[in-house]
């Protein structure tokens, strides 16, 4: 490396490499698909999938703030998600459908998440990473048990259903045509379902943009510094515990907000959709598949995983049918074993593309 004449270096830093552009393009394309999902995909399942993708993008991106940016391994993320969802759902159930219930319930849930995050963070973010992971795992399982035992309030294992404001019910006509029937746009009925979807989409979009802003801010780099070399970050003047706790709380609050949106969309809440360890594993898979420490990775990871969860089975069914003559293969391709293949794919991914899809793409064309 010669000390050559380059007073204006750093240009290399500012030129956006091709791989990075590709990631932005993919994320934008996905964003556009989601923005027009009700009109692009008219079948019922696709809409459910689209809403779920929106919510999970927020959830996974907020987890990426922890694991990808700051290097904090937490197993309590679904706990915060669940607090938001349960808070909203319980108040909706008690007060009946209404915006006041959503706002109050959501606020209670988010506040609870925040307080818990502060407590856990201050108490245990000083200890070794692995112990922190265990503490959060313990906290999450206590919460799960609580939800199951306080079944009078939480519906226990089975969860409970409730009503949401009329604006979001399928019978709601957003616009009426001349005959008083629900107006259609490109053949899609503009009913409460569409309103509900856009509620989900816009809330998710706002939260996602907030996170993009956070990681591009000075704080974002400090988080990475804390992940890379805690002791050095402290030595140049950053209070590591404070930053860790702060980001842990921010992530918790965002997860809880995602939970609020989830509760409003689903009209049902239960451990399986808002609290279980299964969701935690899904989040982990998504964040890794997408690529840690990129935020955009969350978008890609969630889409890939969701499509696999909802459609890989169908594919395997076809594959199993096509190979029915060959011994053994159909058994392994049995659609009920789709998780097996997902697991294998996942291992291969961690093995060969540890940076995930977005991370690998971004590296391409840098140097």
């Amino acid at each position, binding site marked *: 490396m010669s000390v050559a004449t380059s007073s204006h270096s750093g240009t290399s830093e500012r030129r956006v490499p091709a791989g990075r552009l590709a990631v932005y393009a993919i994320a934008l394309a996905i964003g556009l698909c989601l923005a027009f999902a009700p009109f692009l995909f008219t*079948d*019922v*399942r696709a809409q*459910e*999938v689209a809403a*779920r993708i929106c919510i999970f993008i927020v959830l996974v991106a907020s987890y990426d703030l922890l694991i990808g940016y700051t290097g904090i391994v937490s197993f309590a993320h679904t706990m915060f998600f669940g607090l938001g969802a349960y808070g909203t759902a319980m108040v909706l159930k008690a007060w009946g459908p209404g915006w006041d219930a959503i706002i109050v319930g959501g606020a209670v849930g988010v506040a609870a998440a925040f307080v818990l995050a502060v407590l856990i963070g201050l108490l245990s973010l000083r200890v070794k990473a692995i112990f922190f992971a265990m503490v959060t795992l313990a906290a999450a399982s206590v919460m799960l*048990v609580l939800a*199951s*035992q306080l*079944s009078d309030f939480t*519906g*226990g*294992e*089975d*969860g*409970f*259903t409730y009503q949401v404001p009329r604006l979001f019910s*399928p019978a709601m006509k957003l616009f009426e045509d001349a005959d008083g029937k629900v107006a259609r746009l490109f053949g899609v009925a503009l009913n409460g379902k569409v309103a509900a979807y856009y509620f989900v989409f816009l809330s998710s979009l706002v939260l996602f943009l907030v996170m993009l802003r956070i990681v591009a801010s000075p704080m974002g780099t400090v988080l990475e510094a804390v992940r890379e070399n805690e002791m050095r970050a402290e030595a140049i003047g950053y209070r590591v515990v404070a930053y860790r706790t702060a980001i842990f709380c921010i992530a918790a609050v965002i997860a809880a907000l995602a939970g609020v949106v989830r509760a409003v969309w*689903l*009209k*049902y809440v*239960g*451990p*399986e*959709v808002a609290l279980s360890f*299964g969701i935690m594993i899904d989040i982990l898979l998504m964040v890794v598949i997408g690529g840690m420490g990129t935020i955009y990775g969350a978008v890609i990871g969630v889409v890939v995983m969701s499509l696999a*969860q*909802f459609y890989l*089975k169908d594919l395997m069914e076809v594959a199993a049918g096509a190979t029915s003559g060959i011994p053994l293969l159909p058994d392994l391709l049995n*659609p*009920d*074993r*789709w*998780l097996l293949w997902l697991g294998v794919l996942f291992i291969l991914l961690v093995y060969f593309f540890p940076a995930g899809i977005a991370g690998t793409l971004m590296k391409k064309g840098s140097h």
Partner: protein
Amino acid sequence: YTQEDPVKIALVHGLSGSPLEAYSKQTTNGFNLGLEYATKGTMEIKGRKIEVIEKDTQFKPDVARSVLAEAYGDDEALIAVGGTSSGVTTAMLPIAQEYEKILLVEPAVADSLTGPDSNRYVFKTSRNSSMDTQAQALALSPDENLFVATLAQDYAFGRDGISSFKRALEGTGATLVAEEYVPQQTTDFTATIERLFNALKDKEGRKVIYIYVAGIDAMTPLASADPARYGIELSTGGNILPAMASYKQVPGMEGSIYYYYEAPKNEINDWLVKAHQEKFGSPPDFFTAGGMAAALAIVKALETAEDWDTETLISTMEGMSWETPKGTMTFRPEDHQALQSMYHFKIKVDDNVAWAIPELVREIKPEEMDIPIGRNNQE
């Protein structure tokens, strides 16, 4: 619908992601056998082909909701049957209402599925927890001489079951001396056993510990702690066949069971046992019978109804009685729960059979039980 269009029935079950997937398999087999029996192998109703579409809930309530919505909305299924676990099924209930189509619950058991948060589009062929526990209470022939301590898991299923068991004992003179609740995944029962024994051992009379747990084996530790030394008997409800192997430790134990293939004496059950043996090389189990009952209910409803409009179907099914491998079932008009018989058994051990045999003592008829009405769909 044109005459050529097949009539679609959706089976919305958990097929992957949980150990319970085995239950779904049993239901599916039973359901298909049921259709075969009811249509005499033609798979047609009123000249329309029946098409069964299977949907996997992956045991996730959110997935369940979307696949059910898909079944109703995109695949235009007429009726859906499912789901496997109570939680997933709870989440599915509002979808039936949203699409105004019938959801036939099988094999999830929770009482709440026909409770206040349910809706009039929901019918349920599977038994509910109250039936289990009440039949169990009846199988103990309760009187002043009976002292019972209960062991259940500490969650809604366990607590609801025990409170309904308590209701059934009320007025019979029997005494409930202790209720023990253990965490759901308990593996060490020593402490609980000590507590149960301490509560019962000084009582004069017939002393019974009623075990009401799911997914764990409390029988083996209890039996090996030798309750007989205090004159204590164990009692528990029947279970699926593989789980009944551990009952071999308690020959002579009495309890009640939802279905055992040798218990019901009727033509349909005979056919089921034979067909199942031929097809799968094993006798039908718990959920096979339930699946078949669900299929028979659907076929009967479709055959009787004038048209297949949801409202017509609902009015046809309310109060409908039909024959199943468990004898006659009737949809109670108020909450759409199917009332059905249970079986009082006594355990017999046969070394040539892998499981302990719950020998039939007597059939407990629906009229004997007082199953609370969950909601009133008539209002």
